[in-house]
């Protein structure tokens, strides 16, 4: 075991896969010589050469487009979009092409690509370095969407994503690259180097897709969340004294429905949390699933905590971010209702 930040864990996953599988190639803006603006690919070009790890032109449509072509040829491209906020020029390649290639060719061609992108706010990045666009991906049939909350899962899930034969959108909450941020922006974050979930095997291992994790066991209320927000939910549970069971989805779609349903059936209460905007957010889908599968076990209305339906602000960041206080109130509301 080694102690790794999320950045090191992601790098280690790519390193392991570049080493094990000659079909893996890694590319994106600033990814090659420099090693990525978040340094996730640092040293990989020096180790594996310029034809396996390389810089691309600034064209997200181009990056995903060539990934689809390479994947069809038989490579396993791991492409980086510098910020999730910049994937939009690649929408057509992702939605109309990558997601449907298998289906429209009846399996003649497949698209075994992984598209990594840092997401989420909390870094004063303003409206174009803070977005959480996961619902735009989960809405597309044929895409898999994955979003880890810690270094161990990040590495294991990224390896699973690279090995998976479907296109996988791999979202990385940048606010927890260096440590588990619990929403208390005025307090220092414990670095992953001193955190048990920063303990990551150096070699090959996987965390399966479509498997959620009980992040914190509890009996009062189920919190369904992912990414940075599981840490915020944990802080809220500890601070309110409400014994929440926090489910870290890890794979957003397809997802581990059983884990959610089992927990809600046990607690009878459910709070759904994400940082993304509320309306038509992924929480709406989660809420529908819980209501469809757990209606007769529910003792209170399901509560949603999300970002507001506004662009992510620069200066008013902490009024936007659904922090532990907002989550704590939601937990209380879920407990109070009959």
């Amino acid at each position, binding site marked *: 075991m080694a102690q790794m930040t999320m950045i090191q864990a992601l790098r280690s996953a790519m390193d392991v896969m570049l080493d094990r599988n000659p079909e893996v190639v890694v590319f994106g803006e600033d990814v090659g010589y420099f090693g990525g603006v978040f340094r996730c690919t640092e040293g990989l070009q020096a180790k594996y050469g310029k034809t396996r790890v390389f810089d691309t032109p*600034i064209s997200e449509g181009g990056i995903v487009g060539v990934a689809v072509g390479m994947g069809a040829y038989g490579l396993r491209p791991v492409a980086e979009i510098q910020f999730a906020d910049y994937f939009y020029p690649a929408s057509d390649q992702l939605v109309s092409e990558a997601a449907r290639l298998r289906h429209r060719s009846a399996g003649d061609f497949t698209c075994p690509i992984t598209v990594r992108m840092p997401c989420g706010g909390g870094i004063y990045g303003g409206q174009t370095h803070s977005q959480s666009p996961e619902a735009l991906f989960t809405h597309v049939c044929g895409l898999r969407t994955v979003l880890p909350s810690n270094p161990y899962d990040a590495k294991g899930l990224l390896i699973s994503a690279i090995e998976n034969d479907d296109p996988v959108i791999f979202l990385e909450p940048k606010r927890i690259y260096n440590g588990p941020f619990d929403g208390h922006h005025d307090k220092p974050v414990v670095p992953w180097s001193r955190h048990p979930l920063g303990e990551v095997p150096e070699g090959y291992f996987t965390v399966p897709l479509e498997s959620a994790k009980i992040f914190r066991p509890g009996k009062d209320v189920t919190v369904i969340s992912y990414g940075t927000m599981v840490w915020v939910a944990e802080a809220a549970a500890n601070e309110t004294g409400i014994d929440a069971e926090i489910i870290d989805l890890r794979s957003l779609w397809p997802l581990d429905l059983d884990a959610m349903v089992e927990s809600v059936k046990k607690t009878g209460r459910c709070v759904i949390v994400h940082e993304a905007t509320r309306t038509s957010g992924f929480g709406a889908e989660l809420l529908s699933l819980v209501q469809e599968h757990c209606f007769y076990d529910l003792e209170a209305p399901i509560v949603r905590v999300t970002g507001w339906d506004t662009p992510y602000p620069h*200066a008013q960041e902490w009024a936007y971010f659904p922090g532990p206080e907002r989550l704590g109130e939601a937990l209380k509301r879920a407990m109070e209702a009959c």
Partner: protein
Amino acid sequence: MDRRSPLRLHVPEPTGRPGQHTDFSYLHLSPAGAVRRPQLDTSVQKTGDLCYALVRVLDDDGRAKGPWNPKLSPEVLTVGLRGMIRTRVFDARMLVAQRQKKISFYMQSLGEEAIGCAHAMALDPGDMNFPTYRQQSLLLARDDAPMVEMICQLLSNERDPLKGRQLPVMYSYKKLGFFSISGNLATQFIQAVGWAMASAIKGDTRIASGWIGDGSTAEADFHTALTFAHVYRAPVILNVVNNQWAISSFQAIAGGEGSTFAARGVGCGIASLRVDGNDFLAVYAASRWAAERARRNLGPTLIEWLTYRAGAHSTSDDPTKYRPADDWERFPLGDPIARLKTHLIAIGAWSEAQHEAMQKEVEAEVIAAQKEAERFGSLADGHLFSNSTMFDDVYEDVPDHLRRQRRQLGV
């Protein structure tokens, strides 16, 4: 060669990396005054050779040469010099303010000051720039540069005209011909074409000027802009600022190797020029030429401005990791401020003493503006636009769901 020998992928590299000296011969420079100046109504094909040459006016001794010399009066030139110095001093002070954590983020334009300054002077009131984040010189070149407000925007304070919504440097000044900056690269290049088309549809006389970096020309929006501009003969100037770098990637990664960005224009049917962007006189002359063409319904012009990003990409970047530290000193097109100063001195219109006085004056101007702006607080001290303003301007009025959310936030 055996046609069945293995294929190889070509991945371009810069000619210098840390610890080496860049070989700048890849720039293919022309001597000052050597490049012809076509008629305004030139055919597009006849600008083909200009895309591989380099329009320059100032030579190494500061003499103005050749057909592109705009023959500006010394008074106008000193206005330009002041704009460039103002931009440089402003950048330097704001970088310090960022280091002092008064400002969350900053992007300087060191070494590129001539481009925006001379271009702004070549446009008319009512024209509209669609700038990138590195064209602050378009604003700071102006006598009426809104410096205090600009600093309030950088400080994200309670007088920030953008109410804390945008990252520092993402200004918006409709009244000064400066379109709101988006963080998404290249999106505004095509919007400039649309704005120009609107002016033509309405029968107005205004023109647009779109801006993009060398790296961002790889985006589809760049190519789309060229096609639309050509098809509708839009009254627009399409500026490509080739400062050799896009964060850590060299301009060859954007497709500059063995070609030029100006050449993209001719390929799309657009008259195009490749111009020394560190030569104030050349920038002014080429901007004027392009603006006149647009105003006379002769169509769009693409201009590649050759320059060098002398500083880091942003305050989040460390260029010593990917390029030689002495690159700018060795960049053959020099420093735009020093070059215009040398010229003014050479024609007897300027002196070291005057230059120093101007530098001091501008420093005092920027310091005073910063003091004034800091009275209204900063992101660091929490003097911001109130949280409730976050819900304004999402729509024209605040719909029910946002009123509910605003109440929930308790503001």
